[in-house]
């Protein structure tokens, strides 16, 4: 191409502008959370007189550790169970031949087409009958159900990719079907499990509406709901604490993401491009 150096310059100017657009709100939030109320209202730029007391206050006002514990319990339970159940569903669909197999697969997939808002009302009624309103289990179970279609969609082609001969010969060696699934098929499909695990993990950690509908006891709130309630309670009063609270919610996640970003993006786009 003509004048490659000039082209590179234009490319980098555009990309740096875009990067600033994506990073500026996060940077602004971070530096603002080190400001006092007075300085917050004086100017939007980095603090001249930074203080970390906002974080100490936010930490206790939000009951941050309890919220983290709730989020960890919910996310852990959802991700592990989704993967386990989906593997049990995907294995027969991928390996056995039986009547109605493609119908069953299509039926499970159709779950992905239903917008989550459609399910909220029946879900609430169902959980009420089961006595699961205001329990962590009531938050966990619906999210497992939501996750199964996508997980099965990703796992089935991976399971099909495991060579028939490998499965047959293990059967001849006397390995049980469960043994084949857990000792051979699952280890060979590790990338798919990592992809589904990360994807479902982020979705569960981010989930807001299901806890909003199911829980009314603040002790059970996950981080997302805790932060929103914190914001609603103290709107217009405890600005520095709210800024620090949001930073506490966002920044650790971003740091974790940046540490693993290359693998992370690869893992996420792998599923989308191949799928």
């Amino acid at each position, binding site marked *: 191409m003509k004048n490659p150096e000039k082209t590179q310059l234009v490319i980098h100017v555009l990309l740096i502008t875009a990067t600033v657009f994506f990073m500026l709100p996060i940077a602004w939030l971070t530096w*603002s959370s080190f400001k006092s109320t007075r300085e917050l209202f004086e100017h939007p730029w980095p603090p001249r007189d930074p203080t970390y007391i906002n974080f100490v206050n936010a930490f206790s006002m939000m009951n941050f550790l309890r919220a983290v514990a709730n989020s960890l319990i919910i996310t852990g339970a959802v991700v592990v169970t989704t993967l386990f159940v989906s593997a049990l569903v995907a294995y027969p669909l991928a390996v056995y031949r039986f009547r109605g197999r493609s119908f069953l697969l299509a039926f499970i997939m159709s779950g992905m087409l239903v917008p989550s808002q459609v399910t909220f009302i029946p879900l609430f009624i169902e959980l009420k009958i089961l006595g699961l309103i205001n329990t962590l289990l009531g938050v966990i179970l619906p999210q497992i159900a939501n996750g199964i279609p996508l997980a099965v969609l990703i796992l089935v082609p991976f399971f099909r990719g495991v060579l028939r001969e490998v499965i047959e010969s293990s059967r001849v060696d006397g390995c049980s079907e469960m043994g084949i699934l857990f000792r051979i098929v699952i280890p060979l499909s590790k990338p798919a499990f990592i992809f589904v695990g990360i994807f479902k993990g982020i979705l569960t950690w981010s989930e807001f509406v299901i806890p909003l509908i199911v829980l009314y006891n603040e002790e059970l709130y996950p981080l997302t709901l805790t932060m*929103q309630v914190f914001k609603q309670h103290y709107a217009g009063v405890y600005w520095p604490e709210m800024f620090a609270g949001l930073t506490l919610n966002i920044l650790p*996640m971003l740091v974790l993401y940046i540490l693993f970003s290359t693998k992370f993006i690869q893992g996420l786009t792998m599923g989308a491009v191949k799928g």
Partner: protein
Amino acid sequence: MNPTLIRLVGLSNYSRLADDPYFWSSLTISLILTGATLIIENTLGLLLAVLVSQALRGRRLYNTLIFAPVVIPPIYVGILWSWFAHKDLGLISPLFQFFSGEKIALLGEPFTALLTIIVANNWKWIGFAFAIYLASLQEIPSNLYEAAQLDGANRFRIFFHIILPMLKKTIIMLSVLITAGAFQTFDLVYSMTEGGPARSTEVLPLYIYRVAFFYYDVGLASAMAVIMFLITLSVSFIYLRILRGE
């Protein structure tokens, strides 16, 4: 919501729906948000992917930073942008003041509130489209470009006649995901404006939630949910038809 007290009412929920102005306004707002996101996310996501794929240095850094907002939960994105757009605290207001001389409460006016929500939603999701486009671009064999260059094709012809047709499948798949995602936007609006000012940003999911859990009108809310399902379903079918039609 007592499930034992079921009384069949025929289609009356749907006729009530047709007469409900808030249903129509919230549907319109959801469609505007979805349409705008579809256009912006596809265009800017692809543009950034092409730029990064052509950059000789710093690719990994751009990649990481542009994708970063994708991992932030939408509820936090909403809170963050509601403050970022705040008249006295935010960073947008002083930038605006620099040009026009006045501070602006972006979330206080119907038009700018919806605009801010659209920007915030795209801020979160452009990185997703970007990453998928970048991965698809890397699947295109490079000898294709070289051959086109030797034939004297310029940059724009290469883009429109080689890259774009090769990306057709990705564009359609991504559009299905964006449509479904944007049409269901709830958390972001809930935390930014709660539908205000004067219901000007009340998207359909938010209205359904309100009707079901605040007005306790489960019949009307369910009818809206069914309409929503039908819209999502038909949009998916249209995309599938386009994909099969090639």
